[in-house]
């Protein structure tokens, strides 16, 4: 996350239009960090709920071991991990004055990788679903769809957010406001990556091993 930290500082220094006694851009980013902490609470609760349900909530449904394989989730994970790298390049480039075209290019690549991730996830949901393993079957499946689905919803909103930012970059140009928004989307995106590592480990790796 050190790249992100650097970017946070960089965007903070660019704010110069503010006459007040404090630095608005840095403060907004600080506020967003705090929001992310609160969001992480939601994920931790869902993970805790999942950890309970994968043992006690099988009922008449499949167990994690019967349900999961590692193939697709691994590809999915790689797509998301690479997307965090490309987003890092995107914001680093912005810091060192890359052109808007370049910034948008890296952002498009990032969002496309996010879309691939999401596509694989939805495909997997679809496969499970058509096999009759719907969330209504058991507490475990409920927990699985909700936990992974919550992360997927976050990725979806991240993609929509990114598209909106690209439209706004065209509209406003690459000003301080847009830079600050892009840095915040970056924080959000990197957080989702970290959360995914936890999910991949808990749900898929440990699920297959169980």
């Amino acid at each position, binding site marked *: 996350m050190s790249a992100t930290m650097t970017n946070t500082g960089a965007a903070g220094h660019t704010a110069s239009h*503010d*006459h*007040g*006694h*404090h630095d608005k851009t840095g*403060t*907004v980013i*600080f*506020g967003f960090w*705090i*929001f992310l*902490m*609160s*969001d992480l*609470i*939601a994920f931790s*609760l*869902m993970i*805790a*709920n999942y950890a*309970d*349900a994968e043992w*006690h*909530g*099988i*009922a*008449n*449904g499949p167990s994690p071991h019967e349900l999961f394989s590692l193939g697709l989730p691994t590809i999915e994970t790689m797509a998301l991990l690479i997307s965090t790298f490309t987003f890092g390049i995107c914001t680093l480039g912005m810091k060192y004055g890359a052109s808007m075209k370049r910034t948008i290019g890296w952002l498009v690549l990032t969002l496309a990788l996010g879309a691939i991730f999401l596509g694989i996830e939805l495909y997997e949901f679809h496969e499970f679903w058509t096999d009759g393993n719907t*969330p*209504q*079957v*058991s*507490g*475990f*499946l*409920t*927990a699985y769809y*909700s936990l992974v689905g919550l992360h997927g919803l976050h990725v979806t909103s991240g993609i929509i957010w990114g598209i*909106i930012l690209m439209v*706004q970059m065209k*509209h*406003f140009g690459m000003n301080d*406001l847009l830079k600050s*928004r892009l840095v915040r989307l970056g924080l959000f995106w990197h957080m989702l990556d970290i959360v995914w590592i936890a999910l991949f480990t808990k749900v898929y790796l440990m699920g297959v091993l169980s």
Partner: protein
Amino acid sequence: MSILGSLDLNDIFIVPFLKEPTLSTGIAAGAGGIVVLGALAVALWLTVKGWWKPLWSEWLTSLDHKKIGVMYIVLAAIMLIRGVLEAVVMRAQQVSPAPGFLSVEHHAELFSTHGTIMIFFVAMPFLTGVINVVMPLQIGARDMEFPFMNAISLWLSVGGAALVMASLVVGHFETGGWTAYPPYTGIKLSPNEGVDYWIWSLALTSVGTTLSGINFAVTIYKQRAPGMDLMKMPIFAWTTLCTAILMIFAMMPLTVASLMLALDRHAGFHFFTASNGGNMMNFANMFWLFGHPEVYILILPAFGVFSHVIPTFSGKKLYGYTSLVWATIAIAVLSFTVWVHHFFTMGQTAHLNAIFGIATMTIGVPTGVKVFNWLLTMWRGKLRFSTAMLFSAGFMFTFVIGGITGVMLANPTIDFATHNSLFLVAHFHNMLIPGLLFGMFAAVNYWFPLAFGFRLDEKWGRRSFWLWMIGFYLAFMPLYAIGLMGAPRRMAFFTDPAYFPWLVVAMIGALCVLAGLTSQVIQIWVSVKNRESLMVPAGDPWDGRGLEWSLGCPVPEYDFTTVPNITSREPWVDTKAAGKHVMDPTEFVDIHLPKPTGLPILVAGVATVGAFALIFEMWLIAAVCFVAMWVLVLIRSYDTDWEETITAEELREGYEAHKRLVETTPKVSLDDEFTSKNRGLILEEAV
């Protein structure tokens, strides 16, 4: 399914009464009627007075922290009236010959709405409102860090409250208490829309509160006046900071648990169901992972209020500032370690119960430290029993009793006998009425001039205190007694004659509290009528100690003409000690304040309509509202011209005017504090 979802004619408040006229349905229809007629009367009154436009442009669209704070408090006041009236109806029910005049269902709705309203739509908006008005003034800030988000928080809370009010008119509220434990609140046992009212009104307000927490924390971390390091911050800012941190971490479990319950109910999921691998114990854990820190969200701001009222009206510096700060931090941390004590009887091991029991008792230590801080502040002080001080003293006395019963309940072996009894009900009312309401009443009486420029009537204020105080003891001490005799909570009626005399006393107590509330309404009325003689334009009407009292009353839109440099914990006391009544200006600079905007109320309005649609399963309308809400937020993101400038020159003029006013205002002694001679600038020394 039609576009109107599950809504049908029988949901309209008057229809059940027309079909089956009983006293119970009559009361329900009457309550719905009051809501409808009340709303119409207010609308009519605004139209006749021609106040719609000023209301919209001065208040509803304002992003000024003081006005947002006042609107929060107005919301709390309206909901408090409903909550107290419900309590009186429940008390009346239990002294009527069994089975009473309410149906069992209706009684269950009453205790569920009473609890939900008192926690989420009285206590929370009340403390959020006081924080909004006071905290920025105490730390030398000009507004909250995120004023737009602040308004969103406000209107989301209003939306949640509106839904609870709507449940009187359209359909029913839930019957599972304010905690709404599944599987009872699952779709099988609670098939109507009641639980959905609970879920979605809480979803709105819990999101609003999370955003408020972020706003408060960032404001305190980033907006303090130069020189005000954390250990120079006023205690109220400290308690606000700890409350904000609790809001950030503790509201999310509620949001998550309630949305999971919604999925169970409407999507056939199995989070908390009794079959197919659901586990309701996860709900209890998550609910109280929110619920216990929530207790301290409620109580810490009031602790902050007392830490300002008591020194002011004792004429002394707060005793043991540092220990009070650390006690506050300790309480905030410990508040996350005790949630299991809400369900000692759920079936976990005795070891686990023992650990949580000990952790619970530990919280008594820092709280005890605080009580000694306040007592030693009063020790040898020159005490003046204003309304605010009376509420503070009444709090200390009463709260300690509640604390002692809390330590009793913290012992799992005792808790097994008293769990879900009226003893518990008496305990938490004993904590929250003094520990939250008295604190907020003290805050309103103490800080009212900052927002409106005049003091509140003392005579009616003191009457309201005595009625509340006596009413509290009469209403809740009997519940301790019959709780120990075995009376369970949430019963529609009792048949044991031994309870009866106690219930009669409790009924008298409830009427006393109602009289106290009425006195407060009269107090506001009388004060507004006599506002000319209660004006304190020069500010500082009580020989105050905090930065907020260095400002004129009412505080101007921009709060501070110049942001002061802080060198001590009580800069205003130092200024007065140097013989000055205006703080020296630092540097006059142009400042930016947010322009009013109607977007927050629109966003929350659309969210509320969407939530209502979800309650009655109108999925299409809900989806449209969800999209519309985000489109409105998107519109805001295109608005770059959202600030207006106040020039350095205007600020200088403001400063000069205030200085002239202060110089021409006669200084009066403390003996005349509560008389019309007090135009601000009360001094300890007689002049």
